[in-house]
Structure formats: structure tokens, C-alpha cells
């Protein structure tokens, strides 16, 4: 739990909302079940969410995935690619790793317009993670 607390403290500004007392907020974010974790930028725009408790490394990886996605959504392709690469390197066994490997290619394509980078990273994802949903999505590239 220490590691999770450190990841949270370092990477996000956290707020706990009780769905029984924060009814308006729960309705606004259409919360179907708890726990649901929602990641927003400072303007309140949502970039990522997931439902359910996760083991520490998976939870930490999801926090970083939120950061990478937020960077992507604001068009910061280089920053986003760097963040995705860090996830793949730091959390290689997590569910966040396969899609991170793929999105590195998408970021590179956005930045350079070289479509081959998508295919390269897609093939890498399919090869490294054949049983993961992202490996399956990209299996047509093998």
C-alpha cells in the first residue's frame, strides 16, 4: 500500500467521493458501481477511468496510463509517447503495458506522419502479448 500511496501522492490530486452522499457528482459522472476511479485534467475533462480494485502495480500503471492519455488528448505527442514508453518499461507485466506499446506508435505517427510506426508498434504488441486483448486486436498485423 505504501507504493500505491506514493504513486497517488506523486502523480495525481486525489479526492474520495461517497456515492451515497455525493449523489449529484455520481450522477454527473454516471457511476455504475464502486469503486470507480475517474481521472480529470485541471479543467475537469475526463481522460481515463476504470472500475474495481487492482493490485498495486496494476493500479500504479493505470495512473500512468491516465497521464499518457491526457497528454495524447492535448496533442502532446512526444510527451505522450515518452509516458507510454515508461509504462511499458516500468510495468511490463501489467495490463497497461500492451496498449502502451501500441500507443507509442500512434504518438509517433501523429508527430511524424510515418504510418509505418503504427504498424511496427502494432506488430510488436501482437508478438509480445498474443493473449492480451490488445495483442488480439493487432493480431492481423502479424
Amino acid at each position: 500500500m505504501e507504493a500505491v500511496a506514493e504513486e497517488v501522492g506523486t502523480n495525481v490530486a486525489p479526492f474520495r467521493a461517497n456515492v451515497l452522499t455525493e449523489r449529484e457528482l455520481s450522477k454527473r459522472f454516471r457511476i455504475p458501481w464502486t469503486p470507480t476511479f475517474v481521472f480529470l485534467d485541471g479543467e475537469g475533462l475526463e481522460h481515463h477511468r476504470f472500475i474495481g480494485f487492482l493490485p498495486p502495480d496494476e493500479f500504479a500503471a493505470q495512473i500512468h496510463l491516465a497521464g499518457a492519455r491526457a497528454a495524447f488528448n492535448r496533442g502532446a505527442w512526444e510527451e505522450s509517447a515518452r509516458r507510454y514508453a515508461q509504462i511499458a518499461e516500468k510495468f511490463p507485466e501489467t495490463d497497461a503495458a500492451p496498449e502502451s506499446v501500441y500507443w507509442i506508435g500512434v504518438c509517433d505517427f501523429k508527430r511524424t506522419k510515418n504510418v509505418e510506426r503504427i504498424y511496427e508498434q502494432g506488430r510488436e504488441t501482437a508478438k509480445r502479448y498474443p493473449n492480451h486483448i490488445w495483442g488480439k486486436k493487432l493480431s492481423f498485423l502479424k
Partner: protein
Amino acid sequence: MPITWESSLDSALAKARESGRLAMIQFHSPH
């Protein structure tokens, strides 16, 4: 190191703007 929770969503969003981080809401139900 315990997690320091912000007291409101507005506070979390303000902290996110100041620090360039994201805000994270954990929706929970007490059991």
C-alpha cells in the same frame, strides 16, 4: 506515507491546475 485526500473536487482540480497533474476521483460506497 498515507494518501492525502483533497477535501473537494474543486480543491483537487485546483491542485491539478497548479501542479500540472491530473485529479483522480475515487467513487466509493461505505460498507
